[in-house]
């Protein structure tokens, strides 16, 4: 019989963020995604003899910016090192990275009130991309194809301490990190396309035990769901191993998304013997306080600050504020709308309600549709002035998203103004009453909640244009007759 031991999960994450520069980190080859393979390469990134790397200043500035946003210390002296390994995606057989003098150290971010420490951020170059060809020809021989467009694209590697204690928290951490680098415009944060990549180290130990358990590295996590699911699987697997007399081996495991399992990768021989040494082709970096200060001045408002501002200054609920800051596109749109209206609550509701639903249904982004902050605010004003009903607005918003234009114009062209004229509405009220004698009975016998049914029917009759207050009043008057 197994004793019921409670286990504690210990997770550390390494996140690689592709930096949004126009050119690569050490040469002027372009970095654009999705171009024809091997079309964005040059002798430097292909490691031709006699070429020399020259550092892209923008990469350093972005690294410092990210470091400041993640509460890191910025190094006064920093350098690059060579990391040695042989793999066809690495034409130089070395990767220029940073070993013992990374540009940023000792940062942290807060996840639901808990501090997750960041050990370091360093700069390095990305490797090429391998395309695995299937069996070819009569021989059935398989081979790989290499595209070096990605070779030398700048990366920031952000390494957390093992402070994360659940798969869900790991997902929150990466979501927050992604949001921050997107706010900084340092990285576009696309896990599916690989501009943000994540490797996880996970181990378990009985509660109260001081020393850490043997850790396992998980790779191939290209969605938030994959990150959380793979960690959940791996924690269960490790507990099962231990409780059944097995042992955890320190290894790298690959997440198989379609099967929902992790599989042991053939251990790369001597994989951790990278023989780092200082990169002799790149001089050292000296980062003075003035430079850091200049970059600090360019720090944009970050998600946490924005959320607080929405709560304190515009009166949004904590939940609404969190939903809006979770997407930089939504937050930008909302901020622009705030400059034009005082009805923040209404703008937030439309954004989180009808607009988000429409975007989800059509798999679109806020930037893909024709709605502008101006047209949204114009529509909100029309509702607030009583010119249009909410029901009509729900139709107008779709038109604004699909075709653009002005809410005022749509109202004028289609005659959608609210009818408050009692005579006109009374006609509809009488008609609906006449057509539904059964419901009228119910109302008269005290089931006054059927009023909702009547208001709905009368709205329908007036194509959503009747003023609901007037409907209510007229209906009650009719019932009392």
């Amino acid at each position, binding site marked *: 019989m197994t004793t019921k031991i409670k286990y504690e999960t210990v997770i550390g994450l390494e996140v690689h963020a592709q930096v949004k520069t126009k050119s690569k980190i050490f040469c*002027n080859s372009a970095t654009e995604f999705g171009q024809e393979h*091997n079309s964005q390469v040059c002798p430097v990134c292909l490691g031709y003899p006699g070429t020399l790397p020259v550092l892209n200043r923008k990469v350093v500035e972005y690294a410092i910016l990210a470091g400041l946003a993640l509460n890191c210390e910025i190094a006064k002296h920093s350098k690059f090192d060579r990391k040695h390994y042989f793999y066809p995606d690495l034409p130089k057989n070395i990767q220029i990275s940073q070993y013992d003098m990374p540009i940023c150290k000792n940062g942290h971010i807060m996840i639901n009130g808990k501090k997750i420490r960041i050990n370091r951020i360093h700069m390095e170059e990305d490797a090429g991309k391998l395309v695995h060809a299937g069996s070819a020809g009569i021989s059935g021989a398989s081979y790989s194809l*290499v595209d070096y467009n990605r070779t030398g694209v700048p990366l920031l590697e952000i390494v957390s301490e093992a402070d994360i204690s659940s798969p869900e928290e790991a997902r929150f951490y990466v979501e927050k990190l992604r949001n921050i680098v997107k706010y900084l415009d340092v990285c576009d944060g696309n896990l599916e396309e690989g501009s943000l990549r994540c490797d996880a180290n996970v181990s378990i130990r009985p509660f109260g035990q001081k020393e850490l358990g043997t850790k396992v590295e998980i790779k191939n996590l290209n969605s938030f769901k994959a990150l959380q699911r793979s960690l959940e699987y791996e924690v269960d697997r490790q507990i099962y191993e231990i409780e059944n007399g097995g042992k955890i081996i320190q290894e790298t495991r690959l997440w198989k998304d379609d099967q929902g399992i992790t599989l042991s990768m053939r251990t790369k021989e001597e994989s951790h013997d990278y023989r780092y040494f200082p990169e002799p082709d790149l001089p050292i970096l000296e980062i003075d306080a003035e430079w850091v200060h200049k970059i600090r001045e360019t720090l944009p408002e970050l998600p946490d600050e924005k959320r607080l501002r929405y709560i304190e200054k515009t009166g949004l609920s904590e939940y609404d504020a969190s939903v809006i800051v979770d997407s930089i596109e939504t937050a930008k749109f909302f901020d622009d709308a705030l400059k034009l209206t005082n009805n923040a609550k209404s703008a937030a509701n439309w954004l989180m309600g009808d607009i988000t639903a429409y975007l989800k249904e059509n798999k679109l982004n806020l930037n893909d549709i024709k709605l502008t902050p101006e047209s949204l605010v114009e529509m909100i004003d029309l509702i607030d002035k009583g010119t249009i009903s909410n029901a009509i607005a729900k139709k107008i918003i779709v038109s604004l998203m699909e075709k653009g234009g002005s809410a005022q114009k749509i109202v004028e062209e289609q005659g959608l103004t609210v009818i408050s004229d009692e005579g006109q509405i009374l006609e509809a009220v009488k008609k609906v009453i006449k057509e539904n004698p059964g419901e009228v009975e119910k109302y008269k016998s005290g089931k006054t909640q059927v009023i909702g049914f009547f208001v709905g029917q009368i709205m329908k009759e007036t194509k959503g244009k009747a003023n609901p207050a007037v409907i209510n009043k007229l209906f009650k008057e009719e019932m009392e007759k």
Partner: protein
Amino acid sequence: MITVKEVEHAAKLARLELCEEEKEKYTEQFSKILDYFNQLKEVNTEDVEPMAHVFPVKNVFRDDKAEVSSIRTEILKNAPLEEDGFFKVPKI
């Protein structure tokens, strides 16, 4: 002192195949190099700042400007094997 085993390990990492004679020769040479470093270690460096680079240069940068490359065909000429504009390598 360096052992033959360590030389074999270093050779393996560098993807070098060494014959017995070479192994012995390199074991001896490596040991001599390390002895020399040990000699350097004797120097008093208490007030000397650590140095990562021999030249007194720092902060050499380029601007973030991309140039269109048109050397794809030329570069692929140097590939031992090529397919559809890719470099072709043994299966990983």
